[in-house]
């Protein structure tokens, strides 16, 4: 969708302010999240060395001997504050360390998980937006019409259906019954379709609802009526005034939904065997793979900051009018 032929420009002053605030926030998040993760893992029940050995060697081979070897190798006997300081010092040099369980570099593993999760979320979002906004705009054309009522029904149904169940239904229909799409797994382009569609169904209902309500509200606003009165064509009014103003509301809403999406893909990732962040975090916690837990939680936390920044900048671009706080400056 091309929102407008009017060039979008982000005003420089507010943009710098946004970026500065968000950078400070990111630094604080890194420190807080790492420390909190470390403290929580240390306070979990069970012996950490045994847990790591279970992750490394599997249930047939986790023994006291292998746990002792792990303890000695990783220096788990050292005081906890020393281990935490080590991690923070390494983080300053952008070194995420190695996984205690797999022995591989965390940066590489995290890259794979993060890109998988972001890929899945982006595909789901694109599908949901395309479907949701289209339906929402069409429904807003005649509030209370047939399409509008059908949309309401769709929204309720999509929200009520748990993703796990929906995913199973989609697999049964498209893979088992029709045989046109792979059921689960990762590695081919077509693997992403079903998990993304599963996530998109729930989201698209919400987007349709928000779009429809916003469009209806803006259509009745004075500036739209004025634009029509001064003789602008229906198409130009729609693009310049209605869609752009809807975008301001929608982009903030998408930001919030995307966070929920990225953190809520665990179920879908597990059903479709999609190696994403949710999957990684669950495993890492189970095995007490401390560096991996810290890195994954950090990635999620920073993702929140990045997304908020993008939403701020996007809103600025769509609606460059000075904010109330800045009006006095």
């Amino acid at each position, binding site marked *: 969708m091309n929102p407008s032929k009017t060039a979008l420009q982000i005003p420089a002053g507010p943009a710098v302010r946004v970026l500065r605030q968000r950078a400070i926030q990111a630094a604080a998040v890194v420190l807080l999240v790492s420390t909190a993760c470390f403290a929580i893992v240390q306070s979990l029940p069970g012996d950490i060395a045994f847990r790591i050995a279970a992750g490394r060697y599997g249930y047939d081979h986790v023994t006291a001997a292998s746990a002792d070897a792990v303890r000695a190798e990783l220096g788990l006997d050292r005081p906890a504050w020393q281990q935490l300081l080590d991690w923070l010092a390494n983080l300053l040099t952008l070194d995420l360390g190695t996984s205690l369980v797999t022995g591989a570099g965390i940066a590489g593993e995290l890259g794979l998980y993060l890109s998988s999760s972001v890929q899945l979320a982006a595909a789901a979002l694109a599908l949901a937006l395309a*479907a949701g906004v*289209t339906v929402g705009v069409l429904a807003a054309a005649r509030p209370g019409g047939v399409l509008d009522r059908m949309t309401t029904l769709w929204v309720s149904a999509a929200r009520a259906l748990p993703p796990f169940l929906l995913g199973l239904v989609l697999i049964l229909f498209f893979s088992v019954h029709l045989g046109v799409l792979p059921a689960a797994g990762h590695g081919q382009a077509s693997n992403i379709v079903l998990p993304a569609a599963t996530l998109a169904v729930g989201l698209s209902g919400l987007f349709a609802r928000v779009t429809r309500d916003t469009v209806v509200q803006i259509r009745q606003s004075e500036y739209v009526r004025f634009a029509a009165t001064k003789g602008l064509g229906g198409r130009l009014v*729609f693009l310049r005034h209605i869609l752009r103003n809807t975008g301001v509301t929608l982009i903030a809403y998408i930001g919030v939904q995307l966070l929920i999406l990225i953190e809520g893909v665990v179920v879908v990732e597990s059903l479709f065997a999609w190696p994403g962040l949710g999957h990684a975090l669950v495993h890492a916690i189970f095995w007490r793979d401390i560096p991996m837990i810290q890195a994954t939680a950090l990635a999620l936390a920073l993702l929140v900051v990045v997304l908020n920044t993008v939403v701020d900048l996007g809103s600025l671009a769509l609606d460059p009018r000075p904010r109330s706080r800045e009006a006095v400056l």
Partner: protein
Amino acid sequence: MFAYRMKAAVASVAAVLVMSGCAGTGANSAPAPQQPLKVVGQFELHSLDPATSGGFFTRLQVAETLVDADNQGALQPGLATEWEVSGDNLSWRFTLRKDALFHDGTAVTAETVTQALETARGKAASPLSTVPLKGITADGGAVRVDLAEPYAPLAAVLAHTSTQILAPSSYGAGQAVMQIVGSGPYRVERLEQPSNIELTAFEQWQGTKPAITKVSYQAVGRSESRALMAESGQSDVTFGMDPTSLQRLKQAGKLDITDVTLPRTILLKVNAGHDILGDVRVRQALSLSLDRKSMATALLRDPEMAATQLFPPSLPEWHQDSVTPLEYDPASARKLLADAGWAPGNDGMLERNGRKFTVTLRTFPDRPELPILATAIQAKLKELGITLDVKVGNSSEIPAGHQDGSLELGLFSRNYALVPDALVTLADDFAPAGADYGAMGWNNPALTSTLNTMAGGTNPDAPADRRKQVTDILQSELPVIPVAWYRQSAVISKRVDGLALDPLERSWRLSDLTWAK
């Protein structure tokens, strides 16, 4: 306005279709010879190190061990064509296969094998680390292993996956394994941890060339997802089916299902040093209270898997037809408990000297049937008046509880053929001091001396009688209480022929498969 809306709608619909239109090939397309064989299982690849990779690369026939084993557990030549032991049983000599090559084109030499074995020996998780070794040396075209004392099962230990032989180019700094360069019929084409492995047949493999030249393995965590992949033709060989999905696929009848009984037993480890469980009558009563047949039927969907003794029929040398089978007999259980001084209190639960009969059972969910069996055991013991507190945690709780003495009962599955000779695992599990996955607070001098005599190098007479003696002692003393045996199933698509499952779980034998005509 309306025209525009229609255009926008059409454009959006088109976009959605384009995005979802990159569908894969249909499930029913005919197999092209270049198409990979698709294997799906529950195991994820977390590490490349032979000691921790869970036998991935020996199962996929990428790496070889010196000694191999057939489906009955009889030792076969692997990378070594023959082996001999000196008269004093202290020195073994393994002759390597002539002109064997690693996948990087370098020759398999006695030096590289020695190096790989030395690395394996240093890993706590490898059974080689507990062998009384004096030294491993290259000796012409052979590898010589010197022992401090005779150790009959050495060849069997060298069949364990942790002793797989990798080329020097596999190792990075500090002996860390960076890639898998083996000498088997398949070589690794691409690896994406934790879930994808792609293999290609190795051109210079000296044995029979595999009919299927490309294999891809994919780890899928949920068994429902695996079943659906098998149904939709996305997988040719699927492992790790839960009983419910398996039943559904059997009834659908579109796929072949093959199964094999594994030398694995689900058992209750009992802390015999415990003031309640130390009494052998109490252990026998616990065993008599288990309705194994019903548990196997209802929970494992497989009545034949009810254990009548510790060793399943898949360990033919150790399984004894003559032994009195473990029975379900609650009346006798009550009598034994009464003999041990336990009587029902006011609430019907057993007590002795004012103390209730309450014990804790630890288990873990890695094998999905364990928590379910634990709750079934809990219900059966409640009928006798015993309160069982079930704690489902991490698999390491069992060895950790063994070490600090806090474990009362543990439920897990034990594979007695991780090394093809079950003696290696048994001698370790029932050593006088006990073991993480074996006896706890229990030892039996007759059993110890029998196992030691067999493990020594002096080929004892009448090994069958000695094995029977071991089974008899374990059956009457119950340091571990057998619950169920294990069956592994694989679901096979109609596109492939010739899968024979290996009960020792050593190899998936993919090189024997052919495309169906």
